[in-house]
């Protein structure tokens, strides 16, 4: 079952890395589709 756990860990690591990359590269929808004066928060 070593392959099962290795595959599971690999899937989690890939997901975490993807999450960091996408958060760093993408701006949120509310930032992308509004002007700064229309936003409630500073994001």
């Amino acid at each position, binding site marked *: *079952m*070593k*392959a*099962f756990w*290795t*595959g*599971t860990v*690999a*899937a*989690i690591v*890939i*997901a*975490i890395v*993807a*999450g960091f990359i*996408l958060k760093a590269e993408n701006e949120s*929808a509310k930032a*992308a*589709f*509004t*002007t700064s004066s*229309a936003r409630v928060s500073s994001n």
Partner: protein
Amino acid sequence: MLTFETGLRILRRAAAALLLGVVVAFANLTPAAAQQPANDAALMEALKGTLSGRVSIPDEKSGLLQQPRGREWREMREGPVKSFGGWLLVAVVVGLCAFFAWRGRVRVEGGLSGRTIERFSPTERFTHWLTAVSFIVLGLSGLNMSFGRRLILPLIGPDAFAGLTEIGKWSHDYLSFAFVLGVFLMAVIWLRHNFFNALDAQWFKDGGGILKKGVHPPSSKFNAGQKILFWAVMLGALVQAVSGYMLMFPFYFADMAGMQLSLLVHAVSGILFVALILAHIYIGTLGMEGAFDAMGTGQVDVNWAREHHSLWAKEELGGARAHGDD
């Protein structure tokens, strides 16, 4: 003679009367809706179902408030997709239960020999589990997005459901990359074993060797059923990846119509994918004795190999020793 106090008393009474008059006037006002009955149908007819205007914010699409195709899309999503899709999954589960009740577990008829040969290498098993674990989470989180509000929220309440769905949504987005990588690796390592040949027709005629006892059609590394599964996974993963990434990066590649189509395609294809994999999980665990070992330890019993993949077993055993040989 008019004194100051008298004037003050008059003013106070006049103010009170005026205030009373304003209160009475407001009380008698009726809302516009009551005065003029809502006439949305006529309004929508006049606008031909579309409400749009001009906006000054960067998102120009927000100028379109309403479009008839959006309503059709929502009716399709909330109606046929959810009802047919949901009942399809129920039918698959019921069907598998019925098949198991009728056929029972497919046993190794010659009995387990105690000798094993390697069926799948560590690399193959890693690839399978990378894909499978990702798929399980993708499938469950996806089904929650389609059916969770109706089926799970009443059970666990809105707060717990919101938290669960948020975790599911992020998991769904980020595990997609692991799933796509897993399918790509599967294509690289298994493509050459999954081209159809004349043996596959015989395999189908014999019912895959699982409908009747004593019937074991010859098969190489992968039988016809597994080949169909392979190509279904390749196609399904491609459809899910394309439609899914169009949804994850909204309006990068598609307009409103394209986004609506992507969601419908993703939902329908996802439900079909889950139905297919439910059958795969069944036959690989409960349905067939010795099958899980192939992906669990990588070692399968020699008698299992000879019954279910005779040509592959002959190739592997020819000149080689099986584990457990003296």
